[in-house]
């Protein structure tokens, strides 16, 4: 129960979602609870969650070429030896190659642990307002939870909660005021799983550190 409360409520992300949209906050909260219980009703809430993720994200084209892109592409094509110009065109200008690059960028941004635990510090992105999500003290528990889940047999919903949002986010991008919130249930559930390993004799120290770190990240977020 304690691990559930910590993973669900001891983070700034859920409050940010609630502050901007109460309805979305409820949806994220309930989806996470249902995923923790490994209930099939999770899928009922997960689908609208994904829908909101798509709707609230500013989706730039994956193949459009801006003026600056054009400048870089032209410059790069000029660097190819004449006999490889055709290959250069394939690698630099073809829509497939632009699509691949942008999808991969989105994908790798979404699987960066620094995004979820350090507000993307030390590599903040240009043009995106980074914000604090989970306190960094929960990172080891998240990793432990993931490793535990991988060893489990019954992990279908957990896998779905990771792979489907990740695929969608890779395509639609990361320009969203709430962040990649469709991954919140996966993150919280993995942290919850890891926290179960926390021994009761260490609980007091853990709480003190957690509170201090929460004060720290709240301070950062406010300033």
């Amino acid at each position, binding site marked *: 129960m304690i691990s559930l409360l910590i993973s669900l409520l001891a983070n700034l992300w859920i409050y940010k979602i609630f502050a901007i949209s109460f309805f979305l906050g409820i949806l994220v909260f309930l989806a996470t609870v249902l995923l923790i219980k490994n209930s099939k009703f999770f899928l009922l809430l997960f689908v609208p969650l994904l829908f909101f993720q798509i709707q609230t994200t500013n989706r730039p084209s994956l193949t459009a070429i801006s003026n600056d892109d054009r400048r870089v592409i032209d410059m790069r094509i000029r660097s190819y030896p004449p006999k490889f110009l055709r290959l250069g065109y394939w690698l630099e200008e073809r829509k497939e190659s632009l699509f691949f690059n942008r999808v991969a960028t989105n994908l*790798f941004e979404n699987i960066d642990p620094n995004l979820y635990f350090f507000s993307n510090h030390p590599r903040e992105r240009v043009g995106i307002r980074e914000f604090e999500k989970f306190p960094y003290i929960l990172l080891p528990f998240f990793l432990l939870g993931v490793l535990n889940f991988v060893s489990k047999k019954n992990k279908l919903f957990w896998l779905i909660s990771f792979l489907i949002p990740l695929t969608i986010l890779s395509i639609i991008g990361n320009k969203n005021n709430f962040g990649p919130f469709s991954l919140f249930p996966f993150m919280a559930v993995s942290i919850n799983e890891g926290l179960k390993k926390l021994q009761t004799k260490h609980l007091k120290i853990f709480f003190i550190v957690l509170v201090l770190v929460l004060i*720290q990240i709240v301070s950062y977020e406010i300033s």
Partner: protein
Amino acid sequence: MKLAKLKETVLLSLIILLSLFLRFYKLGSIPNGLYVDEAAIGYNAYSFIETGKDEYGKILPVFLRSYEAYAPPLYAYISTLSVLFFGLTVFAVRFISALSGVLLTFVVFKIVKNLDISKNKYLPLITVFVFATIPWTIFFSRGSYEANLAFLIITIAIYLLLLAREKRFYLIPAFVLLAISTYAYQAERVVSYLIILSYLIIYFRKNITHLVKSKEFVISILLFLIIQIPQFTLAFNSSFNMRASGLFYGERIKSQSEKIFLPRLISYPLSLTREYLSNFVSYFSPRNIFWEGDPDKQRSLPGMGPMYFWMAIPYLVGLYMLFKDRKNKDVLFIFFLMVSFVLVPALTKDPFSTLRSLPLSFPLSIIVSLGIIKIVSVFRKFSYPLIIILIILSGIFFWRSYFVLLPYERARIWGYGYDKLAEEIKVKRDMEFLIDTARLKPPYVELAFFLKYPPAKLQSVVDPEVKDNYYTNTKFDNHYKFANLETRNIEWERDIYKEQILVGDEFAISPSQAKEHFLTKVFEIRDPVGEIVFVGYKTSPTLKCLRTNFESIYCKI
């Protein structure tokens, strides 16, 4: 059995040949240019050959002062051999690093062969293939990076440490090499201790007293400390931590801690913890390792990370495999090495520095290889054609990034154009040149390198104050005057009244300044993109004085 051994030897030889090709092909021309640190190493090696002293006239320096770098000197000392053999050329300066890269592939094979972390007999070969072909190791083998030489030394030391589990004698050369590595790269001053500590904790925790009493261990520790005495004597000197202190993110921690609504006694450690951990974690983030790479353009490839993007999947699988087998001592050792290689770079303010964390490429190659083996064992039918496709794709992406884009768009960052500027200076030997240093990294050493300026003469123009206080006077003055050139900022009120050629980058001398002061463009050097790297303007003091009615006092001199 013999056939299997032969097969392994043939495959290993092929991988080493590939490694040799990837590290030496067009080594003198790609990267396109000569970075200032490379020039400093090369010129100091040349200086050692010619005079037995460095550019400041110091015999056997413990740190190489070059401007204010105070870099470990080993690379420059060893480069004397390649400079002696090939002459003072770009190839000669990069030779030791490239050779280290090739030798590393072999040492990595020997290490993995000595580790009991997988039942699969191909793990050493797969690891060495991954290691030899990832952009991370190729890139740093193709520039004169001291870190690559240090990497080779500590890797041999690790191999010897593994042998010492059976024969204690090997502790002695291992500890000697670890001590020597501290003269090869700054981070190794800490990393070497961490390696020893990890090794003792993992393999000798239960019989540490027995080991400590052994004569091999005592000799090893003594040699380890004796070799470092020259450094210890300078430990409280500003030169010892000159570089490190400038890289720590102290200011950032201070400003962050001031934001926290808690007393300073708590807020400062909290701020430090978050800063450190965020840096530490970033070294294991797939985003950095497999896609974006190092943000420093001089230490990264255009459009690709230090490892191939598809390796992110075997990396995650490999990490899981490592976790599952966490009670295995060899697995623990790999894990400890991984942490040791990141503990120091995470203290510096550059995020994800692939140079400082270069040895991390070794455990990561093992992890990726473990992942590949696991994936292949699960998806046997599909995996072989897929792997062949991925290898071909990786080859194409690497060729595009390293051999096409890097020499073109990163030439300027790599110090492109100094060889051509040196040529201009040589051809116009009757003219005086003034090189504007406002936006340039110390140009004197680049020009001394390409002009092959006699080191004894350069030593004679060094400020005697700097010479006498080599380790304590850390201030660097960019003003040099040798041959027919001078390096400093242009002083417009004075320099236009002297017959000379003013040289700068595209912003140093504007067209309106050229018109106002009757300057005549005599040459321009452009990078492959077409942007001006250097432009030279000849002054016309007589014309300037005539047109300004001899207003300036410099007209009367």
